């Protein structure tokens, strides 16, 4: 088991009353799964992803990741954990504008203190694999949305994470570009990477092998195919 959520509650106070963002969420994720989280705007998809990604806190419940109890870890340890095992892909790509494609992909390796020669090899592999060798010296602003997201995914993958969290990865793309990205996810999943994506597109959700429906912070029912 890669991770396990047990009865997770997250709320904010509004006018003295609790408004639940996550309401009793339990979830088991095995290694190698491709999970789609679906639901309308405000249903808690992103919040759930952030909790899984350890970027956000929750008030009640247990979260075990790779056999470590995340809920009782200090922030520093938690940060260490997610940096080690989790890669993020964002709807708005969030590439660093001042860095080239090559440098963007290289950045996570810098923070892991990987040697220069090894970095070069890893980045070169990644560029090769995503077919963007010719674009390595371009800046994000010089790329199309689809290409930017490709770089975003390459960057998420470079540190060899166990889990990819993707929040509406195709939300800013046209349908053709979106399809390409989803095909890529499928490919990655087949190679063994665990993926959890949030989406409100039925067709994108269908790429996953399990779909979780959220409404007002609660899990509705579970379907698998």
């Amino acid at each position: 088991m890669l991770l396990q959520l047990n009865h997770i509650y997250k709320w904010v106070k509004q006018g003295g009353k609790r408004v639940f963002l996550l309401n009793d969420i339990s979830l088991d994720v095995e290694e190698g799964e491709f999970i789609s989280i679906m639901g309308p705007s405000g249903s808690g998809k992103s919040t759930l992803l952030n909790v899984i990604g350890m970027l956000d806190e929750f008030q009640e419940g247990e979260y075990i990741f790779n056999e470590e109890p995340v809920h009782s870890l200090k922030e520093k340890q938690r940060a260490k954990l997610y940096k080690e095992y989790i890669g993020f892909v964002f709807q708005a790509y969030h590439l660093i504008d001042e860095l080239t494609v090559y440098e963007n992909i290289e950045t996570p390796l810098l923070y892991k203190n990987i040697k220069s020669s090894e970095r070069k090899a890893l980045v070169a592999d990644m560029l090769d694999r995503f077919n963007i060798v010719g674009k390595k010296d371009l800046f994000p602003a010089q790329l199309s949305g689809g290409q930017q997201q490709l770089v975003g995914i390459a960057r998420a993958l470079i540190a060899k994470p166990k889990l990819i969290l993707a929040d509406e990865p195709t939300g800013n793309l046209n349908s053709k570009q979106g399809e390409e990205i989803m095909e890529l996810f499928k490919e990655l999943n087949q190679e063994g990477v665990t993926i959890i994506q949030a989406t409100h597109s039925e067709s994108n959700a269908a790429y996953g092998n399990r779909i979780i429906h959220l409404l007002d912070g609660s899990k509705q029912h579970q379907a698998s195919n």
Partner: protein
Amino acid sequence: MLRNYIKIAWRNLKANRLFTVLNIIGLVVGLCVCIVLFSFVNSELSFDKMYSHAPDIYRVNMETSEEYNFETWAELPNAVGPAMVKDIPQVKKMTRLIKDDFGVTASLKIGDKNFTEDRLYLADSAVFEMFDFKFIEGEAENAFTNPNSIVISEASKERFFGKKSALGAFITVNNRDTLQVSGVYKDLPENSVIDCDMIYHILDSWMGTDVYWSNASYETYVQLQPQAQVAQVETQATQLIDTYVPKEGQYFTQFYLQPLTKIHLYSAGIRDGYATRLGSITTIRSLIFLSVLVLLIACINYMNLATANSRKRRKSIGVNKVLGATQKHMLVLFYVETAILACIAVVLAYALSFLILPWFQSFTGNAMNFGDLLAPPILIGLALIWLVVTLFAGSYPALSMTGISPLSLVNKSRKKHTVSEFVRKGLVVFQFAASIVLIIAVTVIIQQMDFIKNKNLGYNPDGVVAVSVKSAESKQQIRNLEHALNRKTYVEGIAAVQSIPGADESGRSVRRLSTDQTGMPIASCRTEGNVVETLKLKLLAGAELPQNIPEGDSLVYTLINEKILSYLNYKSPEDAIGKPVNTELGGEAIITGVVANFNFNSLKEDSGGYMYYKANDAPEGIRTLLIRYNTPNLQQLIKGLEQTFNENLPNTAFDYAFVDKHVAQLYASEERTARTATLFSVLAIFIACLGLFGLAAFMAEQRTKEIGVRKVLGASVAGVTALLSKDFLKLVGIAFVLASPFAYWIMSEWLQNFNYRTSIHFWIFGLAGLAAVLIAFVTVSFQAIKAALQNPVKSLRTE
């Protein structure tokens, strides 16, 4: 890794051009001021340290008795130096140093040419060894072997003799002594308080041979044995007073030793001395304070602009953190960025300081040269400044922004950073408060200078030129010159005097009774002409001094001012006329006239007692002709005067000075302060505006959405501009409230320096506040209008 940091930092700087440029401008201005001032301070602190015996050389100063208000004097009786060498074993050498004729410009005759010289000194022969004189002609050991020898500096040699050797040439001083050049020495360094152009042996003059403990006119330097007990030497020196001076002649009570290296900066409050190159530690301190203030404002600017730019940075910090960056990584990145920026600024500022140095020099009147900028302490200082600016200016942005959580990436609603906003506003308030204090200070200083310029001095220094006649060969020559000048149409009146007001009078005392122990110290000035008419003094009673005194009349005729009158307890000016007055002028003296008090000294002091006198057996000579003229054409006036002068005094150099210029000279240091303060306040305001500009940009950006909504709802451009500007004006208002009392207090203190002073008017505060508000408004409204003109569709579109 570091390479990566530098690369990223550099690109960040390039990506935010506006902010980078604003920051660099602010820092360059602040640093430039600092560099120039530090090099000035450095050159001031270097004074006299180059002399190899400097640690052992002291100037002997003395404390006077009650009669002279316990003043400290740098000029001593000429008996002190020889007595110290003879009686105090730890004193190795001494030299007395006195300007020829007590400092009145000398007239030299060399061949058939006349020169003026005001750095002609008499000294003991030890002076050459004590102050490392390097001879290029002749030798130090033999310089004073022959009587009537004189040594001259290299610059003087070139002035008098050009490229030729000067050895053996004759120089006639004041048509009195003819001296033979026995040596030429390399010019003394610029940073030496000893500034002799020419020196002759004090023992060739009565000044060295007539040894006495009464008249104090001689600067005295001693060189002690290495590791001497200074306090012990001082005690022993003070004991000499009781040994040699009878009780009634003890108008000084104590000797103390002032280290040579302290003379330049620490001589405020010490009277007289011949050193013209005097600085002031107070000036140095206030300049350091001001430059640190300007640098501080520039650093604050950096902080403000850096954090103001944080919206863009927020995203990049979030991304980097998600990608694995720790807080430390981000901290280093920020510091590297600041370091690069500061480095660029330091280099630019250093280059710029070479350009502005001459301008700074003429503007503030502080003497400096390029060498001062190249001194090693300055280069070390540059590195230090760079480090300090980086650490200080980089601290707040680095610390406040590296804490940004990666959540800011995914959370759409952004938390308001109330603390950092508070700090930012606080910084702006500080900047503006400092600027307002400076504006008020400058206004008050300018007002005071104006007040001084327009103050009725009790005499009119405008339209009077002083021509030196002290080197005339005979009294007849002076009389002939007077007659010749009196015939000129542009001459209104002439008075032959000992001194122009406040320059070279003699210090004397008047006593009520001849038995009085102490008297009132006054300035006395011999005169031969109509001073009341020429200087336009206000005569209260009596008349001018008599035109002619019969041969054999031993009476001293005096003209006194009200100060003396009231000391002498006369009921009214009329009452005093014809009455005797007890002076130290030899014969019996009577009062022939009383004039209103006039400010012969600086207005920083109260006007003291002043006495003009005329007598057959006057102890002082006539040195100056005061000439009141009535022509606006000064060039022609001087030409005419010079021609007449040369016709009557063919062997004397023509030397003149305008009396009003002399008066202005009294306030030269205040004038400098005023100019320096003006410069600083303009710079401070300029930098503060840069910061405000940046902050306004930030606020406008932060409120883009609000502005968009308001515009959609129908707000006008003017309304939005007002909305944005209002916040800043509030900050300036707070700054004004904080700054005003402080400025009031500090300027009241400053005005205490003046005996005659203007009051601090309240409109000055209004003016300063208004100026600050106006400047702030112009700066902010640029950004505000820009924001207000934006298309709301753009700002309301969600990402």
